[in-house]
């Protein structure tokens, strides 16, 4: 590529990469010590450049939403999402590249198990809501979709005994150029 005044001092690998499109990834995780280091290490180790990052924390610091704008790397992009999904603290990984960050809201909710388990399952059986981790005394559910839909889901979920929740959208990343997602780009883990 032609050197511009802005990138002429960059190493050749970064200068050529800076013109390439990026992808937007949402990582939802339990807020444990070192989780951000693990996530960023996962990208760096595979040669993917982290272009920007927004973090949203739940009110009781139990849950995190991390939006990452990731540059291209030497390996297929889905390797990054697969490797991120393997991290123990990470409960879900979603590619939001195709979504309009202004029109797409995500949430991670931890709900305490009380009473009949079937009632909880019924309450979580909604469009855009997916159980991503089952703990001994609680359940983690990821909520994703347009603002109205997520808002309605959250209104219903708030009637349940919530331990923690984090809701947000990557506004700070909204202006960046993106590329179309592949068939494998959305990957959400199922709880067992």
């Amino acid at each position: 590529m032609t050197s511009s005044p802005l990138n002429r001092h960059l190493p050749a690998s970064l200068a050529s990469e800076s013109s390439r499109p990026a992808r937007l990834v949402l990582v939802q995780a339990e807020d444990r010590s070192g989780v951000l280091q693990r996530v960023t290490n996962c990208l760096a180790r595979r040669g993917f450049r982290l272009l920007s990052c927004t973090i949203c924390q739940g009110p009781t610091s139990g849950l995190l939403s991390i939006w990452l704008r990731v540059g291209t790397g030497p390996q297929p992009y889905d390797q990054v999402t697969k490797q991120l999904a393997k991290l123990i603290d990470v409960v879900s990984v979603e590619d939001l590249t195709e979504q309009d960050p202004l029109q797409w809201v995500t949430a991670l909710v931890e709900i305490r198990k009380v009473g009949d388990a079937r009632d909880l399952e019924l309450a979580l059986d909604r469009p855009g809501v997916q159980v991503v981790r089952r703990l001994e005394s609680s359940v983690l559910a990821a909520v994703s979709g347009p603002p109205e839909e997520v808002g309605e889901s959250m209104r219903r979920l708030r009637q349940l005994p919530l331990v923690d929740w984090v809701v947000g959208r990557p506004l700070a990343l909204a202006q960046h150029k993106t590329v179309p997602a592949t068939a494998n780009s959305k990957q959400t883990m199922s709880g067992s």
Partner: protein
Amino acid sequence: MCATALMELEDRRSKPALGRRCGAEVLLQALVAEGVEVIFGLPGGANLPIYQHLASSSIRHILVRHEQGAAHMADGYARASGRVGVCLATSGPGALNLVTGLATAHFDSVPVVAITGQVATATIGTDAFQESDVIGATMSVTKHSYQVHDARDLDAVVREAFQVASTGRPGAVLIDVPKDVQQQMVDSDPAEITRLRPHREPPPPCPQLLDRAAEWLAGARRPVILAGRGVAISRAEAALLKFAEQIDAPVGTTLLGTGVFPANHPLALGLVGFMGTGYCNLAVSNCDCLLMVGMRADDRVTCRLDEFAPHARHIVHVNIDPAELGKTVSADCQIAADADWTIRALAQRTQPRRHPRWRDQVRAWRERHPLRYPRNGQLQPQEVMAAFYALRQPSDIVVADVGLNQIWAATGWTGDQAGTFLNSGGAGTMGFALPAAIGAQAADPKRRVWAVCGEGGFVMTLQELATAVEAGLPVKVVILNNGHLGMVRQFQDDFYGGVRSAITHTVIPDFQLLGSAFGCFSAKVTSRAELAGALRSALEHPGPALVECRIDPEAGVYPIVPFGKGLADFVECPAR
């Protein structure tokens, strides 16, 4: 784990502790509750509270001479026993010395839990004496790691660490415990565990995926199966043998898969890949349907990726780790599931098949491309391995080091029991064999355990001979001494213009004297005539023994696939 063992485990967990305990006691009792019987470790300033209470614990402690040895021993213990291996080190250099061993275990999917002492919580981050960021240093070589800041969390952390290490694709886990947490007094009842994260099984593969894979395998005229260590981990050897016979498919193995298919079976192809057998590489290169099960398909297996299995109309890849699917080989059918479960599911969907022409073809390749080595009067490593394997009992464990010795040991393998051939396949760690053999021996003192090393790898961890003697673990070591870093020498000869650079050991210890100095039986073999007698003497000796074999210094491994070439472009042994 069997039902009885599970009940015993639950019983141990349900027994209440009495009185207040310090963190070190909580840690040790949690380890006992997980069924830990042996720890390999080395004490130091930051783990002394643990050692204070370890002395009165039911856990056997094996004192190593270097922490790397502790990690390899825990690794060997885990590979041999199928249980989680545990190692213990102090902070700073002690903890960092574990890194190579943890990487070795992690890359080969071996469940190991490492416990490290750390400086007191208040001094973390102050560059205190013997402080190191072991969490940061081990992040890329562990499945997960914990730094415990409150002794009340220790019980839950240990439980979760063992679960993480041993479930799904197994791996290494580290628990870093600051010294003040080891000394913190807590109530006898462990805190109620509410945050234990369950193992996340990948969802079961959809039946259509299995149907499609079975249809391709059943419809193939030239099928081949490649099997890796995942077959051993999921104990799928019997299912694999039955399925291979059912669809009449020849079976090759990766280095780590050595032993998962009987070496002398008519369908056995031996080792695949960079230094694999010519007939296995030709079979893979000409098959029309390839099933890869319990393996990663790394560059040592595939060699030139765009020439890997070029005639395969369909490739089916089975691995429990979804991240391994599509990472290198882009298989047409990717199944993220347990090997044993999947093979059985495929077998149920497949009718018996016979491929006489394909079998004849493979047989012809086997006759045309046997494993050759020169007969020049000098002792050849292949002769040593043949004599050694002739003495080997089926249940004997052989731990190969890394280098030419590893390939000679793998390609000459004659065993038919999975889990009896151990080696460092992913990390390729020289110095692995001796300490890993000690760990394997600790797992089952009644079995015979052998380490096969080159002299280059052996001297990297030879101090652990003292550990073997001290702990009464009668490992037998065979050193194939060619006076060179042999694999590097062969690469330089074959691929780097023949320029031999920094590969000759001009100073080599007298291994016979060295073994004696450590209190081992030791012998030196310089000719074929001495070989069987020396090996037998080593076997008859009740303690650790060391047999040095002075082999042809120019011996190499053939066939070999030149860098950048495809599997079918292997080079055979040049006439010498």
